[in-house]
């Protein structure tokens, strides 16, 4: 079993470590800045191939010879893994078992109908599979191990047609998935209005932060529902969390992860959010937001 991990500029795709664990610690890392990516993996053996930007058709045909002896090849069902896997299965003439949540040489379980159904197959021949990120988790006990043995290999690419990557745009805090945001500026009922939430959005851009909210705020329609953080919303894992006018109900706190730093702004010094904060500012949140906007050069529409 072998995990095949496509990387971009040293960045691992979602679910990479899970694939390596599922494959028993053997991984091929292919793409750009592969050694940087390998350093972030816990594995036993890693083969790297430095082949430049993502190129599914060319990579697939170049890999044919290199991996055809592996009976099971596992890719993450990340955007790049999903692109590459069928091309590889095609050139190898093997079946593709997509969206698997469990991969053993003789037993594979895949998902269908969203996540409503599982489909269990008992493969009798070599195959390619993609592993749904998050379906396995990583073994928390197996995390600390000795460093992997890394072999660098070279692959010659052919000239199969592939699109040209003109540009990779970095994550935009304003539009990125909240669950991946590093800094969050969150709105609570104490912010008081849709207008204030709109300003919050622009202040967040100036701070390089993503916007979050409590359910009171999303229910009021001041911010869209996918901005809601908490047990019934998104779980986030930021390193810094700034809470404006948030009381700190357990259902909200339950979703904010363990930020290294919390700032709370509230008129009530004794609410739980203030008790949790590293810096608790007893102040009027909408006014403080405007003061912040002024300092950051963000325009305030009256």
């Amino acid at each position, binding site marked *: 079993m072998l995990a095949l991990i496509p990387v971009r500029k040293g960045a691992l795709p979602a679910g990479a470590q899970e694939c390596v664990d599922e494959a028993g610690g053997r991984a091929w890392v292919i793409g750009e800045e592969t050694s940087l990516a390998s350093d972030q993996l816990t594995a036993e053996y890693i083969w790297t191939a430095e082949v430049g930007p993502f190129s599914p*058709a060319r990579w697939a045909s170049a890999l044919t010879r290199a991996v055809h002896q592996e009976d099971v090849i596992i890719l993450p069902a990340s955007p790049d893994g*999903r692109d590459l896997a069928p091309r590889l299965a095609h050139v190898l003439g093997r*079946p*593709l078992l*997509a969206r698997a949540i469990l991969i053993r040489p003789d037993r594979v379980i895949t998902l269908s109908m969203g996540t409503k159904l*599982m489909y269990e197959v008992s493969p009798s021949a070599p195959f390619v599979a993609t592993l749904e990120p998050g379906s396995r988790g990583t073994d928390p006990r197996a995390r600390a191990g000795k460093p992997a043995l890394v072999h660098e290999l070279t692959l010659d690419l052919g000239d199969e047609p592939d699109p040209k990557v003109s540009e*990779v745009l970095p994550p935009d805090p304003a539009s990125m998935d909240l669950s991946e945001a590093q800094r969050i500026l969150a709105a609570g009922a104490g912010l008081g209005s849709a207008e204030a939430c709109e300003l919050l959005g622009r202040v967040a851009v100036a701070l390089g932060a993503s916007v979050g909210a409590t359910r009171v705020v999303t229910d009021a329609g001041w911010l869209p529902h996918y901005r809601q953080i908490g047990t019934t919303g998104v779980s986030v894992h930021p390193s810094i969390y700034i809470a404006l006018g948030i009381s700190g109900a357990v259902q909200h706190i339950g979703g904010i992860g363990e930020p290294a730093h919390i*700032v709370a702004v509230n008129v009530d010094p004794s609410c739980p959010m203030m008790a949790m904060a590293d810096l608790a500012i007893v102040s009027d949140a909408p006014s403080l937001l405007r*003061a912040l906007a002024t300092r950051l050069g963000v325009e305030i529409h009256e």
Partner: protein
Amino acid sequence: MEPAPVMVAVALKNISQDTRIDALTGEVERDEPSSALSRADQAALEWALRLAGIWSGGLAALTAGRRPSERVLRTALAAGASRALRVDLAPERPSEAVARALAAGIERLGAQVVICGDMSPDRGSGSVPAYLAAHLSAAQGLGLLDIKPDSSGRAKLQAWRRLDGGRRELLTLHPPCVLSVEGSSAVLRRSSLPAVLATSSGALPIEVMTPAEPTPGPAELMAVGAKTMPFRPRTHLIAPPDPSLDPLQRVIALTGATSDHAPAKTVVADPQVGADSLLDALRSWGELQE
């Protein structure tokens, strides 16, 4: 010089929306009458209409399936497709076989750009477009968020694709190519009433082709003995407290009773001063980009 016209094809799948799953056995019951297009296929049809409008090579809609699937071709015709083709195929075939059938259809149509929805709600592997590209020896641009045709009118386009970690990439593609789009990338236009009426009943000019006797693909050889069952998530392990610690230390590890938390600093301040202290704090934590 007028660029040569490019024919666009859109591959559509007839899906059943009334699907019930027995939560104990995993049996699937499907109801045919209300089957229709998925959100992603609707977006694909809309993009196909837009591109065909620009490249003026016509738009062909195709589907692989049995007769009831023609329903999706009616929708495409009502929306403005100029040709409709059904490749006769048994239901529930694996992606690779579907792609092979579609590829045969596309070769017959002579389309240079093929658009699909990024994944179907039932099987949902998203691999048909990639297989299709492989069969057609075409470039693939999958899971697209937005498409921008070249302003010169030549059949060249730029497309944005979602990557993980919130990143996106911008691709440049030329025909022949296979694109798949996310459901949120476009909203299918409403067809005009006359067009809907014309396609709502009666015989339509839908071409049908039967692909060469399909050899069973690799997946089909393997699917023998497969079974479905209701979703039972795989176990995620949670790290237990280190058994080598003494019991009190294990309790502490489990309860987080003593997790480090910098002592809180509370300031009572007017908003201006408050804003300053907030920014100062961010600066001191190295969290402010200046």
